[in-house]
């Protein structure tokens, strides 16, 4: 699974790898940026190391809570789901905010457009909320296209706004979208005109994306029918470890999500390591400069906004679309903020950081706290203390504190809904601390050069000169003679700019047919 990002790009930078892999650049990663390729390999290792570390932690939690194999696998399945969907969403947002500086806080809205479009396209015409009954892939493509189009509509006027205004406009748009899907009047109007419906706030059913896995594992995609060859093999293998078919199915979908994350990552890394990504960074840093250097910044921003929205739509489809049911309540603005928190933790501007941010957020911060109450109970039980029924109110929990009895408060704090409140408090605190203490997040500090090749590595023989900066002459050495010196240089080896100009002209003409 770790190979695709690296192997896919061999056309891009393989020719340089020999030159730099032996140059000992590892020893000084800050001053000389690494080849994208070596960095990728290390990053992929980093990501998987973190993933398996987190798996180990949650497996331990499962063991501590006396879960059986199926239980533990289910815990891991669930955190994998959250890690994967957040990784995808964060990658998409990183394209907007981390790379281009577009402060889009309407992520939930663009997800909703994708999911609902997919739902309307694929839902059965006979359902309570009827749809067009089209195949799943049409729904997925349609959802992405629609998200991109809504992104275009938002982008056309909004991109000239300053960041905080863009934030409010995108948030407003996302709320308009949510309220529209929540509206029964909208659903009725759809039914009158197109014969499809969204069913307002009660949500709608449609064939979920999980169906893909069922089709792979069961003949005809029906869980009551015979398993396919693949299904048979996997179920058989699972059975020998007492793992239920349902758990296998769940992990099957995780594979789909994993492929999704890899696809997002490869796409985004390619964009990052390209002239296109370089222009995006320039827009983020100073749009007027990019404009004055001949880049049609608005066109770039529109493209990026559309692409990012399409990816948000796809991530939404893979996440909210999996169960075959969606409702407007899933797309509250809080969801957008979670994605932001994950991006900021990982480090805006870094794709690897985005994946790690999604991973850490989806597992440790979002799902982790929910296991705390039971762990606490188990822990106290070992110590021979019983937590007892939680008090009904905060007041009843506070009163015993006067007599130094902490247990009622602990019980109150670990009651299920209260834990989720405290989890949001924790998320808020983490967000504040990261913004205050480490605004660049985990990986945002890295120098990630936006180019399709390693810029520090010159392929020509003059590379020795360029590679050793100290050898160039300091300013003071050039005196009156410098002009003469330069023309001489121009004449002999093409160091002067006139030679550069010639190179450039020829490269412009023969650009179409290089090796």
């Amino acid at each position, binding site marked *: 699974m770790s190979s695709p990002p690296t192997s896919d790009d061999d056309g891009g930078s393989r020719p340089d790898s020999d030159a730099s892999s032996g140059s000992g650049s590892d020893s000084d990663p800050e001053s000389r940026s690494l080849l994208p390729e070596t960095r990728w390999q290390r990053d992929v290792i980093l990501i998987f190391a973190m993933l398996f570390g987190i798996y180990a932690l949650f497996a331990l939690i499962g063991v501590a809570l006396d879960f059986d194999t199926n239980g533990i696998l289910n815990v891991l399945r669930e955190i994998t789901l959250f890690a994967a969907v957040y990784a995808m969403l964060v990658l998409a947002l990183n394209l907007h905010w981390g790379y281009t500086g577009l402060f889009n806080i309407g992520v939930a809205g663009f997800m909703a457009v994708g999911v609902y479009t997919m739902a309307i396209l694929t839902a059965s015409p006979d359902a309570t909320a009827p749809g067009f009954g089209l195949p799943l892939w049409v729904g997925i493509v349609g959802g992405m296209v629609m998200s991109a189009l809504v992104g275009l509509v938002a982008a056309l006027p909004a991109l000239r706004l300053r960041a905080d205004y863009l934030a409010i406009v995108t948030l407003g748009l996302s709320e308009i979208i949510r309220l529209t899907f929540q509206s029964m009047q909208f659903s009725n109007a759809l039914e009158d005109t197109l014969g499809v419906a969204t069913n307002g706030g009660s949500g709608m059913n449609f064939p979920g994306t999980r169906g893909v896995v069922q089709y792979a594992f069961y003949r005809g995609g029906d869980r009551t029918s015979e398993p396919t060859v693949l299904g048979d093999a996997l179920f058989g293998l699972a059975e020998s470890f007492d793992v239920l078919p349902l758990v296998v199915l769940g992990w099957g979908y995780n594979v789909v999500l994993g492929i999704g994350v890899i696809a997002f990552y490869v796409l985004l890394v390619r964009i990052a390591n390209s*002239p296109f990504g370089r222009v995006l960074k320039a827009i983020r840093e100073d749009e007027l400069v990019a404009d004055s250097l001949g*880049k049609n910044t608005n066109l770039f921003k529109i493209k990026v906004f559309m692409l990012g929205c399409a990816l948000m739509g796809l991530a939404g489809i893979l996440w909210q679309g999996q169960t075959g049911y969606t409702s407007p309540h899933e797309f509250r603005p809080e969801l957008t903020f979670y994605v932001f928190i994950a991006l900021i933790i990982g480090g805006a501007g870094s794709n690897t950081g985005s994946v790690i941010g999604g991973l850490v957020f989806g597992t440790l911060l979002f799902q982790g706290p929910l296991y705390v109450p039971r762990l606490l109970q188990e822990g106290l039980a070992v110590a021979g203390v019983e937590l007892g029924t939680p008090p009904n109110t905060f007041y009843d929990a506070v009163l015993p504190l006067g007599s130094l009895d902490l247990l009622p408060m602990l019980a109150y704090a670990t009651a299920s809904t209260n834990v989720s409140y405290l989890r949001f408090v924790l998320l808020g605190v983490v967000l504040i601390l990261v913004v205050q203490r480490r605004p660049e997040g985990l990986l945002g500090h890295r*120098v990630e050069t936006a180019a*399709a090749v390693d810029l520090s590595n010159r392929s020509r023989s003059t590379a020795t000169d360029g590679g050793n900066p100290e050898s160039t002459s300091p300013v003071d050495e050039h005196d009156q003679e410098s002009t003469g010196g330069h023309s001489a240089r121009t004449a002999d080896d093409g160091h*002067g*700019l006139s030679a550069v100009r010639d190179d450039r002209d020829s490269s412009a003409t023969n650009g179409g047919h*290089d090796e």
Partner: protein
Amino acid sequence: MSEQAAGSATETGDRTTTGDESTVVDSPPPLRVTDLEKHFGGITAVDGVSFDVHEGTLTGLIGPNGAGKSTAFDCITGVYTPDAGTVEFNGEDITGLEPFEICNRGLVRTFQIARELEKMTVLENLMLAPAGQRGESLWQSVTPIARRGVAAEERELRERVWETLEFFEIDHLAASYAGTLSGGQRKLLELSRALMTDPDVVLLDEPLAGVNPSLEKKLLERIHDLREEGYTFLLVEHDMDVIMTHCERVIVMHQGRKLAEGTPAEITSNERVIDAYLGGEV
């Protein structure tokens, strides 16, 4: 100060003789500004300015602070849309075009306060500039086969970038973030980045402001080298010495209008200039 300027102008007259060969007057001038006007609210920043910049020259645009030099620059390069007047570049009317359209026609600018892209390395800054890179297409950047062509082009560009960096002697800073450079280095970076766009005419907005003397000398040497290679420069400065020493032609602006135009010698002997500008400063 004015006396000094006048003195050095005659003294270094020999230095600017190279301009003679390059002033071929037959073809239309690369840059022609006619009756340019720009108002901000009730204030007229540029009030009917006309001038030509001839091919292969280093032309100076001078005037006291608030004379409208930078605004004129912004109107020429598309940052502002002029309220009246035209800007012609190589015979084409470019008035009111977007900055990127103007740049892609071969007219590039630098900024008064160097606007480097801080969280991008010096290399990235330069790699950004060349026009029409095939990798600027989203599609070509992400599809496997097209990406090979992108990488090949990137390698070619990389050579040019390193040569340019060496030419400006900032190659030792290649991997640093532009934001970590000193003021003078930023000016060098900006000029080198502007040249990477393959311009015909370069507009320099106070390239020497805040630059230490040794770097200033280096920058001016580079500008002269480049002019000899056929680049045309329009230079905004309010340092008289620099303009009078290094430019073949000088345009003087005052209170939004063009006060005078001519060779440094003509300018230093122009009564109106002395009254309005040089006289005022002593």
